[in-house]
């Protein structure tokens, strides 16, 4: 009787152990990363959803999408004052700054900005969709955590990673939506 009890515990431990272990290939990948030095290895560490996106080459299987979006939505934080639209002028600086939003790397915004990238959809005239609560929230959420609406999007999660604070995210939201912003200038 006692013996069986121990066998049971051992089996459970073993199962837990193997489940938490990486496969031999993943171990080899980790070994290669470690060979690049501790600073490289540190910045190459993934959170579970980054690992999932890598595993599926940024195309998540449909059955995993729901849970993924839910996990990402839970990461979004909002400004203390509850206002999701801030000051578009401050937003413009954040949108442009390569160390902050760096949004021009992928999007057109103010049409006067030369050399905007086109990896993301163009945002000139983005404010045409109005400033209803739904539009403002969608825009804020997209900027704060692009993965909460599009699993493994090319667009990084600027708010989640602290590149933009919730207040700063609200400023950038205003830069896109405020009718006075150059993004929405009449042409």
């Amino acid at each position, binding site marked *: 009787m006692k013996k069986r009890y121990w066998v049971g515990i051992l089996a459970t431990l073993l199962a837990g152990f193997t489940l938490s272990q990486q496969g031999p290939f993943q171990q080899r990948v980790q070994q290669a990363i470690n060979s690049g030095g501790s600073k490289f290895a*540190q910045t190459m560490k993934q959170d579970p959803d980054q690992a999932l996106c890598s595993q599926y080459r*940024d195309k998540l299987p449909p059955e995993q999408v729901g849970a993924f979006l839910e996990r990402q939505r839970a990461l979004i934080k909002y400004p203390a004052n509850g206002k999701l639209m801030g000051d578009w002028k401050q937003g413009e600086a954040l949108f442009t700054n390569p160390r902050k939003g760096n949004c021009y790397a992928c999007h057109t915004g103010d049409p006067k900005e030369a050399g905007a990238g086109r990896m993301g959809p163009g945002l000139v005239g983005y404010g045409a969709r109005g400033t209803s609560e739904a539009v403002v929230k969608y825009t804020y959420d997209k900027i704060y955590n692009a993965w909460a609406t599009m699993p493994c999007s090319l667009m990084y*999660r600027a708010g989640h990673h602290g590149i933009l604070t919730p207040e700063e995210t609200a400023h950038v939201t205003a830069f896109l939506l405020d009718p006075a912003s150059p993004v929405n200038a009449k042409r």
Partner: protein
Amino acid sequence: MRDRSLWIGFLLALGLGLGIALTQQQEVDPYKEAERQRELFRQTAGILPGELYAAQGEELFAQKRGPKNVSLEACDFGLGPGKLEGALTQLPRYFADTRRVEDLETRIVSCMVNLQGFRPQDIKRDDVKALTAYVASKSTEMPINVVPKTSQEIAMYNLGRELWYHRAGDRDMNCAICHDSYAGGKVRLSPVRSPRQGLSNEWPAYRFEADKLYTLQDRIAFCYESVGIHPPEFYSEPYIALSIYMLAEATKGKNKFTELPGFTR
């Protein structure tokens, strides 16, 4: 020798001065601009910076150096000792003597250690870069021919592919985002290519914007840096893995090397 180095330094400085003076224009096509800068060097200095680095490398290659006081002429880059013609076209590859897959840069380091007796910590990065420029110059405009065959090469290719898709860092980036999903497009003013389109076929190259020689490892490090990931230490596996992955894909796309060392922005 001393005089020659000074002279090389002077020519590089001269070229840079002119380069800066004449790049005040904005919104230029990066390829046309590179071509223009190249011509400028040809006309004013009579020689390209990449050629100067290769000349430095040639001197280093033939010189008896290191604790064992021998040259690198017996170094085997995969085609036999001292055979440099086309050597870069088949690198990275597996080497039985070191029992690892090596790219051009790590192979040079291996030869400096094993033939010349240098301790790894005493090897100067600038020497390796000049030597890389020299050896690469013997593969100028040749077809890339990297086909992983041995189990070690195939394993290294698979590692490289995995790193290629590895999303990490504050910018949630991986190489595929810019170089696959977006190949053919532009990040700001820079056109980006995919490995099948020949990505990595111009290195080592002189980058006039940086006024420095960049090897392929330097170029990969630069991309990691630009997306907020601290680059791997030189000569480590991530570089070898990514290089064999990119160059094997470039081989499938039937690409050639450009003029080597390249001349680019």
